[in-house]
């Protein structure tokens, strides 16, 4: 199989399979979660709580001062790689074209050289994240195969994308194929690892905010 054939497979059947598994998995996960239901809280809330779940959905994106202080490295690397991932994923033109072709949505791209810089920062942050996970006793205790798998499938698309853009080590066509395949691997693995947090954290934060707000606490 030549690099071009691999690329065509990645852009054709591969993408179809990956998107299908991703959507199947995520739909399944959401049904799994919501079908478990929740008992109505019979305790009178301290005050009406409309919107408090949503408030926490947004407020948890910002660390509070104590978190900066105590979990600084986790917070900083976490911020850098998450924001970096979003910028690279959503603002590199080829990605926008892909999203446009899949959804019909489109928006302006950022200069490629800027996205390139962001990619480097994100890669560095992810490496620090990995080293931190291996060194920190708490993270190491919590980590299993799934954690390292999730790290790898997040790191690989960035790495292959960076290598393809800079024509490092391998032929561009092959690298582009590997890049797309690695992103497809990410999609396939996504619903069955902690990567689901991308979506479920909104549910989790909403419940947390709602539970706390009924007691009169902004969490």
């Amino acid at each position, binding site marked *: 199989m030549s690099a071009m054939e691999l690329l065509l497979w990645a852009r054709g059947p591969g993408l179809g399979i990956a998107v299908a598994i991703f959507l199947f998995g995520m739909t399944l996960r959401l049904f799994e979660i919501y079908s478990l239901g929740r008992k109505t809280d019979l305790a009178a809330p301290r005050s009406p709580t409309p919107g408090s779940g949503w408030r926490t959905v947004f407020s948890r994106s910002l660390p509070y001062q104590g978190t900066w202080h105590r979990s600084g490295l986790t917070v900083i690397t976490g911020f850098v790689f998450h924001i970096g991932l979003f910028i690279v994923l959503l603002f590199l033109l080829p990605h926008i074209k892909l999203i446009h072709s899949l959804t019909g949505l489109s928006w302006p791209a950022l200069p490629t050289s800027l996205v390139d810089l962001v990619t480097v920062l994100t890669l560095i942050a992810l490496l620090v994240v990995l080293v931190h996970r291996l060194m920190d006793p708490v993270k190491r205790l919590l980590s299993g195969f799934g954690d390292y798998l999730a790290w790898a499938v997040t790191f690989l698309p960035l790495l292959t994308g960076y290598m393809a853009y800079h024509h490092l080590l391998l032929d561009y066509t092959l690298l*582009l194929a590997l890049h797309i395949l690695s992103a497809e691997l990410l999609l396939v693995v996504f619903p069955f690892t902690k990567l689901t947090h991308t979506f479920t954290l909104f549910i989790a934060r909403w419940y947390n905010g709602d539970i706390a707000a009924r007691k009169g606490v902004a969490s």
Partner: protein
Amino acid sequence: MADETLLEILKRRGISRRGFLKFCAATTSLLALPPSMAVAVADSLGRLKRPAVIWLSFQECTGCTESLTRAHSPSIESLIFDAISLDYHHTLQAASGHAAEEAREHSMKADWGKYLLIVDGSIPLKDGGAYSTIAGISNLQMLQEAAAGAAAIVAIGTCAAFGGLPHAQPNPTGAVAVSDIIKDKPIINVPGCPPVPAVMVGVLAHYLTFGSLPDLDDLGRPRAFYGESIHDRCYRRPFYDQGKFAKTFDDAGARDGWCLFELGCKGPTTHNACATTKWNGGTSWPVQSGHGCIGCSEPDFWDAGGFYKALSTPVDSVTGAAAAAVAVGAAAGVAIGIANRQRKAQARAEHQTVTIEDLEK
């Protein structure tokens, strides 16, 4: 005459040594060799005796021959052809019919093991190769016979190199590339639809000069011409880096020469020399004239997801698969949801009231 060296031929044609030096400098430049190699090139080319060349055309459109013979600057390229003895070429030779085939057989016999075989066009394999025959001989048979006595084979054009258009889906004739059939001879692929004339000449010049194959990539293409992608050498590349893209063929961006990626340019995955050698004697090349690269020097370019689809977009629509996946996911979700609720209900049913006696084993 056959024993004349190139230098002697040139001299006979009134070309001075200065002219020859100039020719060698241009050839060196074309081959992307260091300028200091010009002397070596001059030395070996000067002493070169005319090698025999047999040119076979199979399932092709004659575009490659057109490209080569209509080269804008024939003076230099034609020099190379003056240096070879083109013993058989359907389109170019004067002879026809039995005489032509006899010439081929004669040349093969006379220079067995030494001649250079040039092939353009793909070879059909389906139905016993019945789709293309010459003088009643199938392309497959003719290729196998000619290849057996060749020193090396040059597959000119994407059809000969990778199967090309005849090979495009659904490939009704079962067309394949030369390299799919011949495994025991050195093969140089010079793909392109057609290949850049200077590239064809350069490859021949290299072979004639050094008597060996040039440095080839993993698809058998000379690195000197196919080592870089169109995108790497594209003068519009800075726009790509700046994120400036033409959205249509006639918008302001297109007029300002912005990158054509969004319009489906295959430059990033295409390896060819168009961006540097250009076409029609350096006049222009596809991207310069406002159209994205279609990737014609790459395998399967015709089936590579559409000329006007950006490289990063899917080849096929995934909407159907996506909808089906969501539906199946929802169905599985409902099923597991029901199973989960049953399990929970069962747990509730099995609940035995915990009293203080139940806190210890």
